[in-house]
């Protein structure tokens, strides 16, 4: 049996070795069934660790999604999102209706009606004449 430490095997399984080293380990593993089985067992253990950590993350993400859903569905009688949509639509329709009836914003631009007229109060200048 060839001597190959766990240190080297873990580095091999984790992809931490240089290309030359990987090729050398590959050759050894092809010829040595015991070492091949050990490398497979290490890979399997790492895969189970990854899956376990993924299971924690899945729980955390489910928590965040649930919190978002509650936030979005929050409201008095109807969800806030629906309420905001209805109010915005009603405002838009009212604005269009008023504009159609001639209640638009006053426009003052050259050629589009007269500019607002302001009359400045004229105060008589005090005369210096004696």
């Amino acid at each position, binding site marked *: 049996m060839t001597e190959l430490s766990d240190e080297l095997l873990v580095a091999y399984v984790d992809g931490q070795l240089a290309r030359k080293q990987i090729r050398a380990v590959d050759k050894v593993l092809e010829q040595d069934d015991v070492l091949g089985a050990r490398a497979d067992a290490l890979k399997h253990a790492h895969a*189970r660790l990854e899956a376990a950590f993924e299971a924690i993350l899945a729980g*955390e993400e489910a928590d965040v999604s649930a919190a978002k859903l509650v936030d979005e569905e929050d409201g008095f009688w109807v969800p806030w999102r629906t309420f905001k949509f209805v109010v915005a639509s009603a405002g838009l329709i009212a604005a269009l209706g008023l504009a159609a009836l001639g209640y638009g914003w006053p426009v003052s631009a050259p050629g589009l009606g007269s500019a607002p007229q302001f009359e400045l109060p004229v105060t008589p200048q005090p005369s210096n004449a004696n």
Partner: protein
Amino acid sequence: MQATDHYDSVRPGLVAMLPRLKRFADVLAADRAAGRSLLARALQYMLAQQYLYQRGTALDVWAYSELYRQWRHELSSQSEPIAQARVDDKRFGALFHIDEDNYLDAPVIAFLGGLPPQQRLTLLLVYGDGFEHEDAARILDVTPETIAARLVRMSAALTDRLSARPPAQAAAIVETLYPEGLEASQ
């Protein structure tokens, strides 16, 4: 204003990585309630001190480092730090989400629950988050050689436990709670 610039960049980044931060804190504390509480305090500190974040460095590495630093800081003020790190198996098991198949990897969970927090985090950072050894070392304030040594020890121990091979000697997987500056040289 400089603080506002940093606020704009750090806060959304932290929000985006919230599930991962929660997982890190939960695995560190080995308990959801304690993890959330630790994360809340660490996030407050991070947002208050965000000017310390240097643009160009990975935000997750910075945030994890700060979270870990917060935990160590709080641990150092405890009269019995080792008692604080004791794991309640039930609470630790509750961190793992059960999928549709109702499957829970009990041997792996028991193995992780039996590890000291630093070793649990080493596995999480490398196999859960996919960090390079250098980044994991930066987060846990140790050398990359220490990370590699921990991975070898724990991988061998877990593999032995999952297979029929006799387990590694207990002394080989024991580690202290405190920073291991000398560990890599041993």
